[in-house]
């Protein structure tokens, strides 16, 4: 409970600061933009948080996002219908998670190392299969190798998942809604089913779980699969949402945002802690800070420092709150 109080406070404070100091932030369109960005990071935060709960870490998230975005584009360009490409790319994500999970559980390699290698490998893969991909590259009527007939299904996907109308205007925060739906599903598994109990137990004390008859390795693999699948979903959303994706840049260092969101949301990197609602709240922090900085025309040079200090301050206050609460109890 206390773990959540801190992040609720932080998110509220940031929103208050944003809305009070920056009139232009109050625009509904702007708030929807922010929400969509929160959805975008939130989806990978869910995955990262789950991995963190079982005591692991996944540094390959960003590369999987980029690789999935590129793969989505390349697959469609090669003639696969968007509605078929989507599950294909999800399957790619699941496979990545499976490989990560198997390397970590069967070969007992350190998760940090395996996924760091994955970060290189999938970035490289993205670059090998395609340079820059974009919706127009896939559907450009002027390009004989393209598939103009995919334009409508792609736009349909975009309006359903991202919330942009046919012209690209954001009409509802689709990604945020998607995040909420996914968080509900994940929260259900985490807090209401036996799987969640296993994940918490594994994160805190793997041996205890093992001695209780839990198939620890299988659960670990499942979690890595979920994480990478969510990352590949995020990659496709990125493709749908963004004008274009560069193989060498798309999604890069998103794993840091995901992990940051998870940790801000109350996950401990020691494992065994975290809640679904915390993850969502944790993922909401960065986009608000970012929006604040953008709207206030801050000098580019100062931005990283402002972001870093805000996050640090948030964490410190969170910690102090928690302590006071613990002392009072």
């Amino acid at each position: 409970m206390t773990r959540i109080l801190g992040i609720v406070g932080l998110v509220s404070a940031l929103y208050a600061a944003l809305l009070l100091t920056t009139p232009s932030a109050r625009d509904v369109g702007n708030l929807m933009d922010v929400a969509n960005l929160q959805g975008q990071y939130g989806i990978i935060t869910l995955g990262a948080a789950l991995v963190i709960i079982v005591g692991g870490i996944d540094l390959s998230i960003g590369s999987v996002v980029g690789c999935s975005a590129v793969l989505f584009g390349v697959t469609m360009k090669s003639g696969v219908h968007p509605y078929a490409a989507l599950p294909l790319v999800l399957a790619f994500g699941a496979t990545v998670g499976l490989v990560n999970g198997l390397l970590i559980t069967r070969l007992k390699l350190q998760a940090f190392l395996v996924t760091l290698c994955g970060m290189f490998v999938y970035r490289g893969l993205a670059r090998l299969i395609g340079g820059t991909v974009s919706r127009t590259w896939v559907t450009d009527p002027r390009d004989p190798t393209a598939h103009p007939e995919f334009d409508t299904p792609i736009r349909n996907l975009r309006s359903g998942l991202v919330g942009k109308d046919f012209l690209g205007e954001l009409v509802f925060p689709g990604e945020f809604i998607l995040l909420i739906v996914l968080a509900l599903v994940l929260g259900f598994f985490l807090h209401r089913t036996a799987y969640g109990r296993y994940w918490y137990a594994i994160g805190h004390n793997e041996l205890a779980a093992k001695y209780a008859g839990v198939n620890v390795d299988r659960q670990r693999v499942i979690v890595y699969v979920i994480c990478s699948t969510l990352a590949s979903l995020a990659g496709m959303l990125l493709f749908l949402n963004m004008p274009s994706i560069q193989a060498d840049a798309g999604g890069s260092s998103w794993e840091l945002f995901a992990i940051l969101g998870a940790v801000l949301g109350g996950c401990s990197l020691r494992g065994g802690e975290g809640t679904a609602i915390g993850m969502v709240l944790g993922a909401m922090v960065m986009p608000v800070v970012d929006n604040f900085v953008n709207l206030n025309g801050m000098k580019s040079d100062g931005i990283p420092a402002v972001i870093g200090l805000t996050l640090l301050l948030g964490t410190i206050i969170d910690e102090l709150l928690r302590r006071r609460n613990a002392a009072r109890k």
Partner: protein
Amino acid sequence: GGGNSATNAPNVAGGERPKIAVVTNCTDPFWDLCEAGANKAAKDHNVDLLFRQPEKLDAAIQMPIIEAWVKQGVNGIAVSVIDPKGQEEDLTRIAKKVSLITMDNDAAESTGRLCYVGVDNREAGRAVGRLVKKVLPNGGTIAMFIGNNSSANAIDRSGGVLDELKTPDADGKPGTHPVKKDVTGKYYGKYFLVDGEAKTDGGPGEKAVTNARDVLGRLDGVTDICMIGLYAYNPPAILEAARAKSLVGKIKIVGFDENLETLKSIAAGEIEGTVVQDPFNYGYKSVEILAAVARGDKSKLLGKGQTPYQVITKDGGPDQTINGLLIKFPKAVDFEKKIRDDLASVKK
């Protein structure tokens, strides 16, 4: 771009300060010059300026910044486009709401962008190719270095160099120049391009030096080498690698952009020359144009292809008209002084 209503009437009242926003494609000293120019114009033309250098060369980072500005109701936006094709649709939508111009890297005219401030990267790349031809008239071995192979300016720039080198000779025709056996590559006219592509380094950093150093290592013993650095930080990185191998003066270096180190080294005769775009002017012009448009004055809009690149060498040369553009050939020392003056004219 006459078809949109947003730009037909002045969108600021007489005494009001227009709010103009400029977003680059990444963070770079090159853009610091641009920012200086923009700041100067903001002062000269009484404008509130938002200038943003995004952390990474990634449309996914650039777009949310632009969207936030649109929502905020700025009067004009100048964008260095990252992927013209991909960004086309969104820019079209945005141009309907805000006065939009492109700079440094253009988008299709059909987006409704009011004008483009900047050189044609392919043309500028060709100018680099001509420099290479000048320093190695009989052909030779070349290597190209760049940040990435996927952004529009990179593709155009390196493409321009190779276009120039392979004309008038046919592509792929083996040159006569001797190369080492274990070095693979591809001929462009009389020039043998190591590995057949530009080596990428992912941005400024030690990798730029390592890349150059390792290519020099592989070319040990080969004569008539020209190393081409196509992003601003590449020429000094190449020079550093050449220094470490005592090859300064023994190999030719040709660059792109007006890095101060590059200019100094040209003056010192260590680098042959560079092709510059004058980012200070990009910044100044962009803000000036958008400010005028915001006040209802469209006379400042540039026509097609009005921004020429310049070619800097140690000794300079007379102006020439190339492909319909009047190109200046300033001396390195003079140009360096101009940049210093530009920078000094705006307090940081």
